[in-house]
């Protein structure tokens, strides 16, 4: 069954988040007060609620709506939704309480102009939470799961100036995201075992999962995710700290929604993962400890929100315990518990928010006697409290009854059964005390602090806690339309995997659960009467060591380590490099990952064999490469060193040509020339005093340092030499890819295999390469113009940069002397000549060596010649059409367009389309206006732009003045 409408509630809520963010714009923000914003934005979750409610009548017992979009169908990944009664129950709660919380928050933040931020976060959270309970595959579930963690971080840290808020938010994030990672791994394991990521497949492969040898791993990992999220012992300690969130957020996240995510997940997976011994013990024990811990710790606290937080932990423990059971009644208890808890706990949180808002404190020791001044709040709180205490006629009574019914049922060994029953009764009694304290000590008796005076909250604020409370009353009094019971029964059925009957009648006759209930209530009442003593006694108990201590220690340790690591930093760049190299050496020898290329046992060192026609040339060139490289190091004069480097680079080009790799050799030649030009220009930028100083620095070598660097270099030189030798000696080798390219190049219509690889097979890589190259050009431009000027203090005006200054005609070149007419004419000829050569090379590049890049560089060298001959201003004046940034932009745009055009015609990005043939253009033979030629032209344009930027920036005479003025 497929249902595209499913996505609408989620979209609606996210649209609400967007609307809230838009309300942050000054124009809207001025017009909308917080409370009005709350009313308007509440329409989004309300709409989602109504949409979801529509689906309820259609949800039969085993009915599931699914919907999916293809994401990466080739590896079976789809984003999908899965919607059954269990999801519906959660989704309805999320949107119902969400609507109320948004209205309430509008009142809570009255007069605060920054509230749009809160609304954005909470609606984002709501969307993520909806997505979580409606997710149809494990990855969608995970994405939304982490979405709730992140948005809840933003909500808890909402009062970001408060250190406690920040710390609490970080703790919550750390624990829940950590659990989320475990969850992801567990879910992926599960998908692997099942062979599908979709829930509808997973939920029908229970046997495969339970019989899998990965079952324990999957269970532990998923439980880690669920336990951290749902604040189960021993991960519960983040929840009380998260109470530094604004109260509306706490009411929403920490009672009804986020902390239930783990419960939802476990309930969802119970039919396939559950019903095993491990499952039973894990969930029951964790749940039971959590329940008791929460109940006891709640009594230690005097902050109302902390009390509520711990009582939530207690309730979450109960729910987790219920999932672990294998009886029909426990799933009835689970579903009723979820509903009842969401209703009364969110109401109580909101009431606490009202009390805090109206009196300015949440401390039980200071509060009291507010019932007279806040009668409505009191009434709501009393009803919600009764529901929490599990007293009739409220819905909470039913929740407790079903819990106790589960507690006496178990098919367990006697002793364990006893513990189960006893702990449930104790938890029931303690919950009664907690709720009694909450209601009585706040609203009855005398205030602990006589200055505390409450006044009634506005009706708009009361409506939010009132509605769920009334609902708990109505649900308890009138079992209501069949529809509801059916929804709950179906949800319980989805969680248990079998059919579950749910009736909402409170009175089920005299039976054991009722008896236990009476015992629990009696104990609770007695404890309540003597609550001061009980609380004092519990507060006197030694603090139980929790993971909190480990958490603290861990982060203190991380901080200390980080500080120690910072102290290790000496700040000398070349020593960092040194350290890296030595470490690399250590790794090479440690892991022996470097096979000795000269296997002395089986191979003799190859003798020098001098056959072959070009052998003398090759030897000569090898000496040229190595000799000039050596000269480049030894020569003291920088200019000569640069020339030597240029010689070495040309030698490299010849070696490449002898490979034979003519395409590469061509590029190497033009690049080498360009590098020499750029080096000379850059050297010109440095003041003579600095160059002098550089030489002195080089002369002042320490002997030891010299030997150390030489040694390291020699060792690495030998390693590279051995690797090269190994590569050369093992020729010819098997290559998996090269023959393929050789064969398929024919299809492209190109003769050059290298050119075909670059422009056709790996065109997107080449596009990236050109983008990187263009960024380098733009980067140099911005670096010199902005970063460098920052230090001299003269900020350039945007308009001036790169504009031709419009000086009068100058006959002086870069160095100052008069330009010889011969050279001037030569320069004028060279540029158009370079352009012609470049274009020819580009157009025939598929048959001969040459491509767009070398064409671009050849043209740029022509331009560079102008800069050298005529100087900066004159060149800018005469070549006014040369706009490097625009050229880069057009080039990249053209590359993308030609790829897109090919995609439209051929259906694949950068596929080959012969536009010349397509449009019937008369072109010379061997010239094809194919998409790859267009691509090469685009490359050429951006290369010319980028190189011009380089030459332009590095060769700017005034730039030099500005740079060194300081």
């Amino acid at each position, binding site marked *: 069954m497929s249902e595209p409408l499913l996505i609408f509630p989620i979209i609606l809520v996210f649209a609400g988040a967007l609307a809230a963010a838009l309300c942050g714009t000054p124009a809207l923000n001025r017009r909308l007060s917080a409370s009005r914003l709350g009313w308007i934005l509440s329409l989004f979750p309300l709409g989602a609620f109504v949409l979801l409610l529509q689906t309820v009548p259609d949800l039969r017992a085993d009915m599931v709506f699914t919907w999916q979009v293809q994401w990466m169908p080739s590896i079976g990944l789809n984003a999908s939704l899965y919607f059954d009664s269990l999801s519906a129950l959660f989704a309805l709660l999320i949107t119902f309480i969400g609507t109320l919380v948004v209205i309430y928050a509008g009142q809570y933040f009255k007069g605060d102009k920054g509230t749009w931020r809160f609304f954005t976060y909470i609606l984002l959270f709501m969307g993520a939470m909806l997505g979580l309970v409606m997710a149809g595959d494990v990855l969608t579930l995970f994405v939304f799961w982490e979405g709730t963690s992140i948005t809840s971080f933003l909500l808890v840290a909402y009062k970001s100036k408060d250190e406690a808020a920040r710390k609490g938010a970080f703790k919550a994030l750390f624990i829940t995201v950590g659990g989320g990672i475990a969850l992801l791994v567990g879910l992926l394991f599960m998908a692997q075992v099942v062979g599908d990521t979709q829930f509808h497949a997973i939920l029908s492969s229970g046997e495969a999962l339970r019989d899998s040898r990965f079952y324990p791993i999957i269970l532990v990992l998923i439980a880690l995710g669920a336990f951290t999220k749902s604040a189960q012992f021993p991960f519960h300690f983040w929840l009380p700290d998260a109470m530094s969130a604004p109260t509306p957020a706490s009411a929403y996240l920490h009672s009804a929604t986020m902390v239930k995510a783990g419960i939802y997940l476990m309930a969802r997976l119970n039919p396939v993962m559950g019903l095993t011994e491990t499952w039973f013990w894990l969930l029951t024990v964790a749940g039971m400890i959590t329940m008791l811990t929460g109940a006891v710790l709640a009594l230690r606290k005097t902050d109302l929100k902390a009390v509520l937080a711990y009582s939530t932990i207690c309730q979450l423990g109960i729910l987790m315990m219920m999932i672990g059971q294998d009886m029909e009644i426990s799933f009835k208890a689970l579903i009723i518990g979820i509903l009842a808890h969401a209703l009364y706990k969110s109401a109580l949180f909101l009431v606490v928010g009202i009390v805090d808002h109206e009196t300015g404190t949440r401390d039980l020791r200071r509060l009291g006697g507010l019932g007279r001044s806040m009668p409505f709040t009191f009434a709501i709180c009393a009803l919600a409290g009764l529901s929490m205490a599990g007293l009739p006629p409220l819905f909470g009574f039913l929740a407790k009854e079903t819990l106790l019914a589960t507690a006496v049922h178990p098919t367990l060994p006697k002793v364990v059964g006893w513990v189960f029953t006893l702990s449930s009764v104790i938890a029931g009694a303690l919950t009664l005390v907690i709720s009694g304290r909450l209601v009585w000590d706040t609203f009855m008796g005398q205030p602990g602090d006589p200055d505390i005076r409450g006044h009634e909250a506005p009706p708009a604020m009361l409506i939010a806690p009132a509605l769920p409370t009334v609902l708990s009353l109505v649900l308890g009094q009138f079992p209501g339309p069949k529809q509801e019971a059916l929804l709950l029964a179906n949800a319980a059925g989805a969680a248990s995997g079998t059919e579950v009957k749910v009736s909402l009648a409170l009175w089920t006759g005299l039976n054991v659960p009722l008896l236990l209930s009476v015992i629990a209530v009696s104990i609770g009442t007695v404890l309540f009467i003597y609550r001061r003593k009980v609380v004092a006694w519990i507060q006197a108990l030694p603090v139980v060591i929790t993971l909190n201590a480990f958490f603290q220690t861990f982060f203190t340790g991380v901080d200390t380590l980080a500080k120690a690591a910072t102290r290790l930093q000496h*700040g000398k760049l070349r020593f960092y490099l040194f350290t890296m190299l030595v470490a690399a050496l250590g790794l090479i020898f440690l892991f022996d990952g470097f096979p000795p290329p000269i296997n002395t046992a089986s191979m003799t060192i190859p003798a*020098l*064999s001098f056959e072959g026609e070009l052998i003398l040339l*090759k030897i000569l060139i*090898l*000496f040229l490469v*190595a000799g000039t*490289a*050596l000269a*480049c*190091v030894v020569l003291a004069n920088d200019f000569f*060193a640069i020339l030597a480097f240029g010689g*070495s*680079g040309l030698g*490299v080009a010849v070696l*490449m040509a002898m*490979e034979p*790799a*003519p*395409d*590469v050799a061509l590029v190497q030649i033009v*690049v080498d020339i*360009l*590098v020499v030009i*750029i*080096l000379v220009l*850059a050297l010109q930028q440095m003041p003579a005093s*600095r*160059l002098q100083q*550089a030489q002195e*620095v*080089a002369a002042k070598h320490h002997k030891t340092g010299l030997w150390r*660097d030489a040694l*390291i270099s*020699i060792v*690495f*030189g*030998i390693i*590279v*030499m051995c690797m*090269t*030798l190994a*590569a*050369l000696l093992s020729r*010819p080798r098997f290559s998996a890819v090269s023959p393929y*390219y050789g064969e398929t190049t024919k299809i492209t219509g190109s*003769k*050059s*295999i*290298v050119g075909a690889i*670059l422009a056709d097979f790996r065109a997107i890589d080449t596009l990236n390469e050109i983008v*990187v190259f263009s*960024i380098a050009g733009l980067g*140099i431009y911005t*670096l010199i113009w902005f970063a460098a000027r920052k230090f001299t203090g003269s900020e350039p005006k945007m308009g001036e940069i790169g504009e031709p200054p419009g000086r009068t005609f100058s006959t002086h070149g870069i160095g100052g002397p008069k330009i010889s007419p011969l050279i001037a004419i030569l320069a004028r000829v060279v540029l158009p000549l370079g352009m012609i050569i470049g274009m020819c090379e580009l157009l025939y590049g598929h048959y001969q060596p040459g491509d767009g*890049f070398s064409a671009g*560089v050849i043209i740029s060298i022509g331009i560079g010649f102008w800069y050298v001959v005529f100087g900066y201003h004159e060149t800018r004046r005469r070549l006014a059409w040369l706009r490097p940034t625009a050229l880069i932009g057009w080039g990249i745009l053209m590359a993308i367009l030609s790829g897109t055009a090919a995609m439209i015609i051929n259906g694949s990005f950068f596929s080959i389309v012969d536009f010349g043939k397509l449009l019937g253009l008369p072109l010379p033979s061997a010239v094809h206006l194919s998409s790859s030629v267009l691509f090469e032209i685009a490359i050429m344009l951006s290369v010319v732009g*980028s190189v011009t930027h*380089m030459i332009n*920036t590095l060769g700017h005479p005034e730039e030099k003045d500005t740079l060194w003025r300081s």
Partner: protein
Amino acid sequence: MEILTAFAIGLTFALGLFQILRRNVIRAAIGLMLLTNAVNLFLLSAGAYTGKQAAYVGAVGIQSDALPQALVLTAVVIGLGVTAFVLAMLIVIVQRYKSCDSDEVRGLKR
């Protein structure tokens, strides 16, 4: 013959590395380029065949390996970009620290 080629490449690499480890930043930049050249040659030597002919469709005889050539071509291009960018950074660094001594460049230490 191969041992000579390997030796030349290893020597160029070592010289480039040595320059980078020294204090003179201008020479370090030149050293980086030597290093680039050596690495490009090494990559080219990783080709699988001893070619007698360039890698063109229809060439008779053993063709050289086109794949590393395509990679090296990209590497040469990026090398040019890197060189130019390094030089620009060098200009800013020298000007910022008022020194060509790489030991004086210690902005990270603050």
